[in-house]
């Protein structure tokens, strides 16, 4: 019985992230537009876009290989699995132990790997620009991320997100310098990873500074849909990651009653909204930076993460 | 009793007789074959020494120590004569040698054999000196045999430096006698080895020290230790290749043997300064010096001559360190070096005939043009560089490991020298054996047998030493203290 419930909850979570991801993207766009005193697209616009793209035919470049066609599905799968392993409204999901924080990062890594390959596949210089810059950014973002994992894991004594969350929700944590640094670094990484301003501009399409859009330039139809979807799932993933690590309140521990689950879901959606709003606010208030300033930006994140870890190595109470 | 004496007299007699015959006989084929036969018989006689050894008399002595040397000498002498038979033939064809000088050559070869054997089997330090002088003179004549400017110059240099060395050695010998006389009394006994050894403890240490200094420099010149080495490279480079092989493989050993004898003498005397440190220093200097000298060599034979100096340095070092392990290693290294180096010289002589020159710059890509020869040389160099599974590795293994535990810094210098040497050797080998072929390719029919025979022995010895040999070497090592 309990197993079945767990199974249901796990499935629910998977569907939830899938369902909410476009909404979050739409929400951010909306808020940005409003902050710029524009009307902005309706919240459900992303769903419409996806649906339309799904229905459209795929236009493949002549020498696109099988890799180009497989990648979207792989990327989608990897991102979806990763996203559905992050506790959103309830910890201790059925399969949560099958992958810890590091694995989730690695999964996103493999998604990126294939995206970058897809960028190179067609053999235009746009794809090249995109993937080479993407990998450069990742080469700094990933270590920073690992450092953040170290920090939190050392505090919580585990790399399991569920355990982390339950530990952080408990009172004995208190305020810690290291966690503060980690949060800061995590936000910076999240911005870079999701190709947001100031690192990259999700709204642009033909601009020599673009990274993510340059990679997917050749994609169309259902493939593009999958990539867009996984992009917004990635955004969702990071927001909920921040949420479950640094604002874990309202997370339902395993074996909670259905009523509690409802509360959890509500709390989660509230956190998403807050996260989205802050992101939009941030993006509207800052200008995009030159591509070769990005390493400094991410290097700072890496240093913050490393500093946080060092603090913890020196003393567990910092 | 007389029956017991047969082998020794044979070891000395056969070369003497052969020499006399060879002077008389004309015709290169006949003389060459006779030469081979004579050396082979000498070898047999030497081997038979295992079974019947004469009592040490006032003039003759055969013990474990010189038995090693005798067998080695006669064996390499034999293989070299086989090689020289085919080598000299080609020299005649291209007219570098006249039949007359050839007759002389073979006679001298036997005289040299005789001299070396005498130096080894004699029980009298005076006779030993005479024998070594004789060996020197014969080799001088053979080095100069081509009568080219370089050959004469090399012979002259060898002659002058050798004579000075000989003189110093004689002075040392006299001093030893002086040291022995008060203890043993006047007359022959005071120069007889077996007697000296028994009473060495009572000799006057100061005299012994001075004596050893002179002997070290005197015989050290023959061993080719730096800075007394100057004659060696040119003599090797300008003489006929078989002689280079004999020089490197044998004569150096004989001189080293003399040195060892006197080292034992000093070691037996408590008051005398330890000969070890002196030999160790000379050895290391020679090793490092020769290793660096290898780099700028343009002449292939001269290069391997320097490599001989390097290895003599290692051997001297090993014996200087002393102790059962190091001495064993020294003996092994000496044996392996003789075999390997002569094998290399066989290859080199052959190459020089094929290429018509000794300049390294004019040879290249041998493994492509003459595979057997090229790979033979590669194998030889690999062996001489001390790579397993060839024999020299075992001795270097023993020397280095046993030294490092006792005197780390010495071991480090040793290793440094070896490494520098290896680097130099392979730098040249790469241009000779690999890369695109260079230089002329004449037809030369020197026989491969001696080279590969030596290399085969070295190869086997690298992984398996017969127990008999081992116990024998161990006795000698104990003898050397």
């Amino acid at each position, binding site marked *: 019985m309990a197993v079945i419930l767990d199974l249901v909850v796990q499935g629910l979570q*998977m569907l939830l992230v899938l369902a909410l991801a476009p909404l979050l993207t739409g929400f951010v766009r909306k808020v940005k537009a409003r902050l710029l005193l524009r009307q902005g697209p309706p919240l459900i616009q992303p769903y419409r876009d996806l649906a339309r793209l799904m229905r459209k035919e795929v236009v*493949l*470049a002549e*020498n696109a290989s099988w890799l180009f066609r497989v990648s979207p599905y792989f990327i989608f*799968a990897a991102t979806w699995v990763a996203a559905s392993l992050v506790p959103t409204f309830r910890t201790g999901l059925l399969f949560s132990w*099958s*992958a810890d924080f590091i*694995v989730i990062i690695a*999964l996103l*890594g493999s998604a*990126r*790997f294939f995206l*970058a*390959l897809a960028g*190179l596949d067609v*053999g*235009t210089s746009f794809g*090249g620009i995109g993937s*080479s810059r993407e*990998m450069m950014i*990742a*080469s700094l973002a990933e*270590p920073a991320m690992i*450092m953040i994992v*170290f920090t939190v*894991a050392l505090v919580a004594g585990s*790399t399991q997100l569920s*355990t982390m969350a339950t530990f952080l929700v408990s009172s004995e944590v208190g305020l810690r310098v290291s966690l503060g640094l980690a949060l800061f670094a995590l936000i910076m990484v999240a911005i870079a990873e999701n190709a947001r301003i100031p690192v990259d501009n999700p709204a642009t399409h033909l601009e020599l500074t673009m990274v993510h859009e340059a990679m997917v330039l050749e994609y169309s139809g*259902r493939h593009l849909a999958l990539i867009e979807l996984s992009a917004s799932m990635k955004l969702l993933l990071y927001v909920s990651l921040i949420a479950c690590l640094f604002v874990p309140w309202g997370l339902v521990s395993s074996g909670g009653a259905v009523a509690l689950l409802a509360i959890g879901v509500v709390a989660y959606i509230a956190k998403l909204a807050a996260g989205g709003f802050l992101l939009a606010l941030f993006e509207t208030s800052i200008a995009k930076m030159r591509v070769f300033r990005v390493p400094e930006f991410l290097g700072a994140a890496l240093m913050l993460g490393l500093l946080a*870890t*060092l603090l913890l190595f020196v003393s*567990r109470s910092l | 009793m007389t029956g017991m004496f047969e082998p020794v007299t044979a070891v000395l007699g056969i070369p003497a007789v052969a020499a006399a015959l060879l002077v008389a006989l004309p015709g290169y084929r006949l003389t060459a074959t006779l030469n081979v036969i004579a050396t082979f018989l000498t070898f047999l006689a030497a081997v038979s020494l295992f079974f019947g050894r004469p009592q040490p008399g006032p003039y003759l002595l055969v013990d474990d120590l010189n038995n090693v040397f005798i067998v080695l000498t006669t064996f390499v002498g034999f293989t070299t004569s086989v090689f020289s038979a085919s080598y000299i033939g080609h020299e005649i064809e291209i007219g570098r040698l006249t039949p007359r000088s050839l007759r002389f050559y073979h006679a001298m070869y036997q005289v040299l054999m005789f001299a070396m054997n005498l130096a080894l089997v004699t029980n009298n330090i005076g006779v030993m000196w005479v024998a070594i002088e004789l060996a020197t003179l014969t080799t001088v004549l053979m080095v100069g045999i081509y009568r080219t400017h370089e050959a004469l110059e090399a012979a002259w240099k060898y002659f*002058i430096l050798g004579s000075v060395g000989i003189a110093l050695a004689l002075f040392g010998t006299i001093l030893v006698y002086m040291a022995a006389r008060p203890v043993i009394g006047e007359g022959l006994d005071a120069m007889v080895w077996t007697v000296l050894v028994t009473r060495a403890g009572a000799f006057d240490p*100061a005299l012994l020290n*001075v004596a050893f*200094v002179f002997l*070290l*420099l005197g015989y050290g010149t023959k061993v080719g230790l730096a*800075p007394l080495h100057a004659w060696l490279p040119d003599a090797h480079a300008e003489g006929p290749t078989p002689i280079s092989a004999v020089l490197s493989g044998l004569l150096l050993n004989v001189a080293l043997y003399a040195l060892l004898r006197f080292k034992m003498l000093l070691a037996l005397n408590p008051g005398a*300064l330890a000969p070890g440190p002196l030999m160790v220093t000379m050895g290391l200097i020679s090793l490092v010096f020769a290793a660096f*000298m290898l780099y*700028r060599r343009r002449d292939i034979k001269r290069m391997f001559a320097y490599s001989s100096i390097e290895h003599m340095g290692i051997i001297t070092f090993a014996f200087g360190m002393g102790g059962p*392990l190091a001495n064993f290693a020294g003996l092994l290294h000496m044996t392996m070096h003789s075999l390997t180096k002569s094998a290399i010289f066989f290859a080199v002589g052959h190459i020089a005939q094929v290429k018509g020159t000794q300049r390294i710059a004019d040879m290249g890509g041998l*493994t492509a043009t003459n595979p057997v020869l090229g790979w033979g040389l590669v194998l030889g160099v690999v062996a001489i560089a001390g*790579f397993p599974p060839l024999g020299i*590795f*075992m001795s270097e*293994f*023993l020397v*280095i*490991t*046993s030294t490092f*535990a006792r005197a*780390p810094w010495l071991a480090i210098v040793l290793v440094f020298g070896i490494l520098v040497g290896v*680097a*130099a050797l392979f730098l040249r080998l790469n241009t000779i054996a*690999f*890369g695109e072929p260079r230089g002329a390719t004449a037809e030369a029919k020197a026989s491969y047998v001696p080279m590969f025979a030596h290399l085969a022995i070295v190869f086997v010895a690298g992984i*398996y030493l017969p127990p008999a040999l*081992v116990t024998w070497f161990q006795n000698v090592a104990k003898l050397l203290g």
Partner: protein
Amino acid sequence: MVLLALACAAVLITTAAIALAIQDPARARHVVYGICLIVSSALLVIALLALFGISQTPSAVTLPLGIPWLGARFRLDALSAFFLAVVALGAAAASLFALGYGRHEPAPRRVLPFYPAFLAGMSVVVLADDAFTFLVSWEFMSLSSWALVMAHQGVPDNVRAGYVYLIMASFGTLALLLMFGLLAGPDGGYAFAYMRAGQLSAGAAAVVLVLALIGAGSKAGLVPLHVWLPLAHPAAPSHVSALMSGVMTKVAVYGFVRIVFDLLGTPAWWWSMVVLALGGITAVMGVLYALMQHDLKRLLAYHTVENIGIIFIGLGLALAFRAHGMALAAALALTAGLLHVFNHSIFKSLLFFGAGAVLASTGERDMERLGGLIHRMPQTAFVFLVGCAAISALPPLNGFVSEWLTFQAILLSPQIPSWGLKLLVPAVGALLALSAALAAACFVKAFGVTFLGRARTPAAEHAGETDRFSLAAMFFLAALCLVAGILPGFFIDALAPVVQSLVGARMPVQSGVDWLSIVPIAESRSSYNGLLVFLFMLLSGALAAWAIHRLASDKVRRAPPWDCGYPDASPATQYTASSFAQPIRRVFGTVVFRAREQVDMPPPGALQPARLTVEMRDLVWDALYAPIAGGVGFAADRLNHLQFLTIRQFLSLVFAALVLLLLVLAIWP
């Protein structure tokens, strides 16, 4: 057991002789590689039997060879068995590959005799149980591989590569010689058993550690002793490169583990610092070097350097834990290191095979002249892709598992009391993460530039799929990558006896855990289930595909790519390897390689092309090797004057020596 293994080695040696005997290259090829395949499979079986406790007690034997009074001793314990398995596996795969690949060998008689000898050397090293046998086989391995590097001696670069390789090899061997001298003591206890029993002073042990690092590290390719590796590995025929990179470096690791963990006794705390620092630097430097290459095989070789760094990080952590008596943690770290040894040997061989296949069908190693091969050789492309993903530590493949374990080990290290380690370990962790990320970038480049995009040269244009032997070998290894990735528990359990014998503890039994996931310490702490992740991704991917193709469109149209209005741009407009690496070069290269970019843009209307020249320096070489070479050359020149003295001057040398010695006597007390 061990006798069987030795018999196999003997067969290999005889095969080398046979290779010389057979004239017809094709027959020689089939015979040699066939025998090698069979024998190494047999070796694999033996090793596995030994590892999985058919004979739990190590079987030993002494042959009347080597040092006479000692004999040649051989022993097959858990550690040897594991590494023998690695060697045999790699050898079997390489032989299978070579059955087909050997066809393209220009000079088979320079390869066939040495190949079996090389295999024999490697497999005897791990069996040796005394210093002499160890070094003989060790150096024999180097020598035969040197011969293989010199196989294509027509190319001057290869000759140079072989030269550098040989010098570094003998340098390492001499270091090991000194080290064994110290371990054996003045009276020559060369048997490993004796060394195990012996107790060294702290100083001596430290010297041994340093010498072991030099000796084994120079063969494994630790920075700064790595210089020969990227020269030599690519120079050899590809299947040999695979062996050298995938297996021989592991034999070097074996040497290090054997000496430091087995012979040397309990470590001092600071040893681990040296090893960790070296490991971290090696990992990052290796991958940065690799990123800057555009020669496919050299890139792979540099990448070996990186992975060796990762392995040494694992070993260093194990040392640290062991020094502080944390047996369980040590077991975890060591397992991570050894598992990475296994993993790397698989995917590095696979990648070199792929490079070999590309080389064979295009004649090109330079990525700038390849491209679009995924269309010409799809199967090779697929397995190469698997290899790339595995080496970039992407789940659910095997490379990720060992790195994940290493991270887990790092997370245990705060409990170490010593301060130096407290500060070093996080830094090393960051370096490890950095190298992992850079590796991904590096292999996106390697695969993307070689196989994707459009063909840059006719050679790449007209490439064809490689032969079936090669494909068989590659698919076999790719499958292993996946299996080891999704079922790591079994491999970890297989390593248990090795780890147990070395650090006196083992990781918890993995095969017992439900759902076959791996749990380093406790499930609440961390766990990973490759199988489930794999199934999840398969499921969701398939689900998405099904849903879309059923419910939405599955129409496809081919059209020219978006060209900004400049139609049919030439393949030269694609991103090249160096342009792909340019951002990373800007970030790291300016510091690490003193990279300088210089653009000369012709004035408008001028006809000559604009040029971008990049100039990079190998600081390690400049700082370490160039001075040494210069110094030796200088000394050689100076001393060389002594060859050209007059007789009189030589005499005065003798005279000086005489007077000097007499003076010594005169002032002798």
